[in-house]
């Protein structure tokens, strides 16, 4: 079969599979988050936690729960890394350096999974399995919980109750993530991913040299890394490593897992607000942006413009033979469109414009379809901004799902949108202003700027992929990127929950002839337009100095 046709079928098969599962999964998640009944094991867990599962919380209490849980997670994960040599299953690894441990703890708690370390030479099995992988689950569950709180804000009227954070956290983990992860892990092992606790051991190769075969509980971590849109690999080479992504079909499964929950959440949203068409509109916005981006990334990589790709005859540097160009590009687009950041090929060596697409995907704000939970609440924020812009055009008070978007609401939405660009641009400017931090760039010229811009874009948007050339395990980058991840995660969460609180308090206004319908293609087109225009206005100057300057020579 012609490689291009095969690459298109690969994308088509993903779309078909997602279209088939988004409804049942979305409906299932709706039941998980709205059912009044607790499972027996959940009751036991609530008793151990010391919380009342049937009391609901107002937005500030819900937010404090999120922050308290994340703060404790941060401390425990930091401690676990610093003390790993004193605990069991460290497979001989030293304690992690303070700045790397801080960076990594923030990185996994914020669902970013930026990796300033190299897995196979830094992290023992205990830290990987009981520290990092745990955060892969719970940080994803936190994202989903916050999204559900916002959705309840739209759905409820005249109340300050948004649900119970502890219940949302436990249910998301226990009823959604763990079951899918378990099945997925076994499927991936059947493809060749490893799952053992063997120490790294040496073999004599055919050519008479020695090679160390590494071990570890990889599959169980790989699956949640994709499903929870986390992205932090067991190994430095991430999903390019054959033990993390063994075959061309495990590659497909991993992309499917990345996109699974983010594309199903709009269905859940539609069910909760009592109008599934609203969910279809949101998923249409996500799908349009995602498809455009996947097609463009594939096109740029296939065209292989640029001196080295032309010399090679294909954009093959940093890509695996079993995946080939197109399946690598599709993975690259999926991982940056969601806040995953796993990589099966190295974006630094992509063509200038292909690499720019991965950066642009993150700059969209991780909404197409974005991270688990985070993608939905990000997209709803953009929908709020869109109805506001539309309201300005016709001169009437905007409303969305029967809720008035007044000055308080639009302030939360605007603050939400402004957070990441400020972190990205200020962070990049600070790094570029210092010769010492510029020295971390591997490549020179525009490509070097791309490396730094990519790093701050990835951290602030909680993506976690990298233009890997940048040497980031310096104290300054570890601290600066750690702060970018921290603020890039929790400031938006506070604004989302604040907005949810003020929406829930309102009683809905009945739709009138002047109400903008938010379930029609017209609205879908407007949200797509607003998203692209906002992002382009914000980041075009920076992109022009980096990948555009390089790619349009």
């Amino acid at each position, binding site marked *: 079969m012609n490689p291009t046709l095969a690459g298109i079928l*690969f994308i088509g*098969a993903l779309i078909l599979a997602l279209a088939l599962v988004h409804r049942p999964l979305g409906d299932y998640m709706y039941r998980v988050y709205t059912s009044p009944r607790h499972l027996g094991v959940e009751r036991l867990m609530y008793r*151990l936690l*010391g919380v009342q599962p049937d009391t609901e919380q107002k937005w500030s209490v819900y937010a*404090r*729960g999120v922050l*308290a849980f994340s703060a404790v*997670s941060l401390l*425990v994960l930091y401690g676990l890394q610093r003390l790993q040599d004193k605990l069991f299953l460290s497979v001989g690894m030293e304690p992690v350096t303070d700045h790397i441990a801080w960076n990594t703890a923030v990185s996994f708690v914020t669902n970013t999974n930026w990796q300033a370390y*190299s897995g*196979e030479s830094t992290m023992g099995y205990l830290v990987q*399995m*009981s520290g990092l*992988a745990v955060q892969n689950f719970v940080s994803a569950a936190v994202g989903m919980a916050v999204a559900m709180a916002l959705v309840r804000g739209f759905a409820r009227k005249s109340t300050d109750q948004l649900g119970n954070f502890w219940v949302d956290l436990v249910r998301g*983990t*226990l009823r959604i993530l763990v079951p899918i992860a378990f099945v997925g*892990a*076994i499927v991936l092992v*059947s*493809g060749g991913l*490893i*799952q*053992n*606790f*063997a120490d*790294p051991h040496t073999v*004599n190769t*055919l*050519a008479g040299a020695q*090679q160390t*075969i590494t071990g570890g509980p990889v599959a*169980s971590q790989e699956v*949640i890394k994709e499903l929870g849109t986390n992205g932090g690999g067991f190994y430095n*080479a991430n999903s390019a*490593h*054959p033990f993390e992504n063994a075959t*061309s079909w495990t*590659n*497909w499964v991993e992309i499917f897992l990345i996109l699974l929950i983010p594309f199903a959440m709009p269905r859940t949203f539609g069910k909760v607000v009592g109008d599934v068409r609203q969910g279809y509109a949101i998923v249409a916005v996500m799908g349009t942006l995602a498809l455009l981006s996947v097609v463009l990334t594939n096109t740029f990589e296939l065209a292989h413009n*640029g*001196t*080295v790709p*032309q*010399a090679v*005859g294909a954009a*093959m540097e940093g*890509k*695996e*033979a*079993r*995946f080939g160009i197109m399946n690598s590009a599709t993975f690259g687009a999926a991982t940056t469109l969601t806040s995953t950041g796993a990589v099966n090929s*190295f974006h630094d060596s992509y*063509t*200038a414009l292909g690499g720019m697409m991965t950066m642009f995907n993150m700059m969209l704000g991780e909404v197409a379809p974005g991270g688990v939970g985070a993608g939905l609440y990000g997209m709803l924020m953009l929908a709020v901004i869109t109805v506001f812009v539309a309201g300005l055009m016709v001169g009437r008070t905007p409303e969305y799902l029967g809720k008035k978007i007044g000055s308080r609401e639009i302030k939360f939405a605007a603050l939400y949108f402004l957070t990441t660009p400020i972190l990205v641009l200020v962070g990049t400017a600070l790094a570029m202003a210092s010769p010492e931090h510029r020295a971390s760039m*591997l*490549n*020179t010229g525009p490509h070097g700027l791309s490396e730094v811009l990519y790093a701050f874009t990835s951290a602030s948007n909680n993506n976690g992929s990298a*233009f890997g*050339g940048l040497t980031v395990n310096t104290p300054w980058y570890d601290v600066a990127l750690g702060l970018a991840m921290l603020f890039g995660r929790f400031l938006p969460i506070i604004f989302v929950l604040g907005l949810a609180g003020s929406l829930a308090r309102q009683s809905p206004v009945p739709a009138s002839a002047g109400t903008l319908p938010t379930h029609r293609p017209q609205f879908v087109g407007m949200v797509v337009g607003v998203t692209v225009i906002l992002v382009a206005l914000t980041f075009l100057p920076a992109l022009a100095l980096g990948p555009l300057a*390089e790619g349009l020579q």
Partner: protein
Amino acid sequence: MERLPSWVRQHLAALRALLVLTLLTGAIYPLLVTGVAQALFNGKANGSIIEKDGKPVGSSLIGQSFTDADGKPIARYFQSRPSAAGDGYDPTSTSASNLGPEDIIDTLPVPGAKDDEGNPDEGTQSLLTQVCTRSKAVGELEGVSGARPYCTADGVGAVLKVFPDRAVSVNQACPATPFTPTYKGLPVECGKPGEDYAAGRTVPIRGNARAVVPADAVTASGSGLDPHISVAYAELQAPRIARERGLPIDRIRNLINTNTTPRALGFMGEPAVNVLQLNLALDKA
């Protein structure tokens, strides 16, 4: 408990939640997966180890170098792709090169100069020169043309820095003969190590070469552990293997066929030849 301030109670609940969820997702879940995986897919869960004469020689998923102690290709084995993992195919240091598409200018080694640790200055090869060098080496090994676009005949990147009065072939260290004597009427000089040419305009020269050596043979993979090569690269190597081993070429082609993983379901990924398995099959042939 009730007498504690509410923020303390909240953090205590958070800590308990983390511990309970760690028990669930950080202990029970991975152990359960390990148990099932070990029971159902024992070989795969343990790394798809391949044995020869009862001794493990590696993993069918992890590529190996087929070079001798000096790093020279062993002629009777199929060669893997270039690797950026450590010194090549080192699973304790997996990595890609991370070099960009316009990384085309070398830092030439200055003869006699030492680096901070007292080792001789080796300079830095750009990605383009790495590609050209590999292409030339593969061409020589397989007895075909190693020429490529943007490469000089001596196997470095064909890149000029153009100044008002002259042009410099920056990757060709003096006393090399520049790949072209003139550029738009300007004389072309060889590159002087240590000289700063940053002020010149960068002009890569495509030339009219057509590459025979396949793309995967001149590029490093993402993991540095790529166990596969393309079918084209395997076929390029087949005549040499047949000659070295005194086997008919059809036999070699058959072995390539049987060790090629086709696209999964006919459309996923690319057909790829597993080098370690192929070489093991050769040793048995």
